[in-house]
């Protein structure tokens, strides 16, 4: 059983917690030992947030260290840049091509870096960076909140779990009435790769 280290980064309130829950439950169903470490409290109010997911035959520390992540899922591109040192050489980055300006940028004191996706590709290898406008896809599906499921769909292609397990885990993690739209978003992400 190969160990997989992952971090999920984004802006507080973007739904990173649901994503880690879905991944964690899927790992449990596949009989992995798994630990997930989350951030609650103040940074959930629009701050930079990071969730760690570690799975394998045995896991001690719940945290992923710098240069240890096999996969980074970034809900926002500046956050991808902020945490990129966590990606190990040859690791994959799934990045939502969305820009949410932090306060220093909003007030004009600092600049939002340009061409982030290009720079990330340059740093990590062209084929290792999977960029997607998940917000656009979510809007087309009629619910901006399913951005995370589009990203989970892409992740599913990088992971050794069966699709059925993913769908089961999604079903258990989202409210019943939103299962269909979440499933659709997952399928779109899954189909992109």
């Amino acid at each position, binding site marked *: 059983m190969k160990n997989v280290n992952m971090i999920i980064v984004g802006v507080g309130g973007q739904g990173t917690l649901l994503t880690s829950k879905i991944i964690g*439950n899927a790992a449990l169903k596949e009989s992995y030992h798994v630990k*997930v*470490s989350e951030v*609650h409290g*103040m940074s959930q*109010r629009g701050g930079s947030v990071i969730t760690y997911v570690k799975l394998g035959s045995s*896991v001690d520390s719940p945290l992923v260290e*710098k240069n240890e992540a096999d996969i980074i899922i970034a809900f926002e591109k*500046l956050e991808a840049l902020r945490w990129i040192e966590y990606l190990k050489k040859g690791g994959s980055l799934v990045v939502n091509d969305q820009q949410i*300006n932090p306060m220093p940028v909003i007030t004009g004191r600092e600049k939002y870096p340009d061409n982030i996706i290009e720079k990330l590709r340059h740093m990590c290898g062209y084929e290792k960076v999977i960029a997607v406008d998940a917000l656009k896809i979510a809007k087309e599906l009629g619910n901006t909140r399913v951005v995370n499921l589009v990203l989970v769909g892409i992740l599913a292609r990088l992971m050794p779990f069966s699709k059925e397990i993913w769908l089961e885990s999604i079903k258990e993690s989202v409210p019943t009435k939103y299962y269909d739209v979440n499933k659709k978003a997952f399928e779109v992400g899954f189909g992109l790769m």
Partner: protein
Amino acid sequence: MKKLMLGNEAVARGAYEAGVMVATAYPGTPSTEITENIAKYDDIYAEWSPNEKVALEVAIGASIAGARSICSMKHVGLNVAADPLFTVSYTGVNGGLVIMVADDPGMHSSQNEQDSRFYAMAANVPMLEPADSTECKELVKEAFRISEEFDCPVIVRLTTRIAHSRSIVELGEREDISLREYRKDPGKYVMMPAMARARHVEVEKRMKRLGDFSNQATLNRIEWGNRDIGIITSGIAYQYSREAFKDASFLKLGMVYPIPEDLIREFAAEVETLYVIEELALFLENQVKQLGIKVTGKDVLPVVGELSTGMLKEKLLGQGPEPGCSTEEKVPVRPPVMCPGCPHRGVFYVLKQMKLTVTGDIGCYTLGALPPLGSMDTCVCMGASIGMAHGMEKARGREFASKTVAVIGDSTFIHSGITGLIDIVYNNGTSTVIILDNSITGMTGHQHNPVSGYTIKGEPAKQVDLVKLAQAIGIERVRVVDPYDINEFEKVVKEEVSVDEPSLIISKRPCALLKGVKFEGPLRINKEKCKICRICMRIGCPALVDKGSHIEINETLCGGCGLCTRLCRFDAIEKAGDLNEKC
């Protein structure tokens, strides 16, 4: 059945399986989810108490009445509950009593980094510390057994990374525990000097017995590996150490007070180099040193912030991280912000315009201290805003008070603000206090409180009437204002700071994230009308973006609260969808 559970959720499960009947708490990160999850069990009575002191007193009452009881709080909450803690240590318990305390090394969501382990030592109470979710559940159950066997409260200490990490837990059944008999026993439960003197003797005897227990308890275990390096550790530090030192020997403590002295001696004698690896202060290390044992610990490791596997490898093994991806790019920081539509925003805008000195308090609104609002001068602890405003007046006089306000949330006011307000009235102060009444405890994830009108289980409850309360303690000037109406708000604040008596302003608007709160939908900026004066940017709404050449509203963030429209003098902010190009 196996489940992936948050440490806090596993604590709740442990309480359920241990047959707990009464659970109390005041919400505080990282402890909040313990009691939120306990409230989901129908067999357990759960409540949000007004503060941690009351919460512990309720739990003590329940324990003496014969029920297993649990009381949960964050580290600073234990300061509030310290008064009953030190004496319940003397009275002991009837039904088991467990106190959960969650420390926050690294201060992810706290105002200090205190190490609550010292409370166990100071109050003569045993303390357990789990290292993952499974242990969270098991140690809570063990804590109840210890509490009843040794007739004392037991503290179980978590840290953020334990409380907020998910790992696998095997669920068990609820123990069939019935209420213990209640017996009147003044010698044990009435702590007047004569009785307390006798009880203190019992406490010291108990601690000795607990010391022996610690040596034999399976809670403390040796994991032999290579004997070159031996590591004494507990909690999350155990996990980091395990990962950094694959082959070393470990003495893993589940009971961190009292420590197992014999076991430590035995372990130390067998290993060549001994490390004590713990986060924050030298709690274990100093105790081990007192046994006359030489150890390495805080001479190398920091007392500030969290540890990590990487740090242990670097500082103790001299292994730096291998270079991976890196960036030279300057990445702007992303501090937390008040949500779009937050009712607090208008308040701080007005206070900043008026250039007032603002004593602040603990909650989402503490974010009013950050730019561009930047209108908070102090924040110390729950309720401090009010007493501090009064202290400033007594130090600098009435003139200063006319340029000062205290700002406090509704839940924080109930927690610890009322007594401060009484002080102002009683001691002839003239301070102006603003209660930000958003009908919820926001920062910790929206818990009900005595002002919100609902209990933890969502049942309707009586609401504290803040206006009547203020009048009853002798405040004659009480005003209720809508903070979205910034002009009116400013007028009211001006009037109240200028009068020679105490006043209370209640800023009333529900939190923008509450279910029932609906806005009109996103706004947008009409580029033809906008003169790029940037006044709207001063409120620091994350939905308003300065693009340099123009101002833009991020429509996925904006709910349409309309606060920015009140600032724009050119009528340039309008409903999105009014313009043709939008469709």
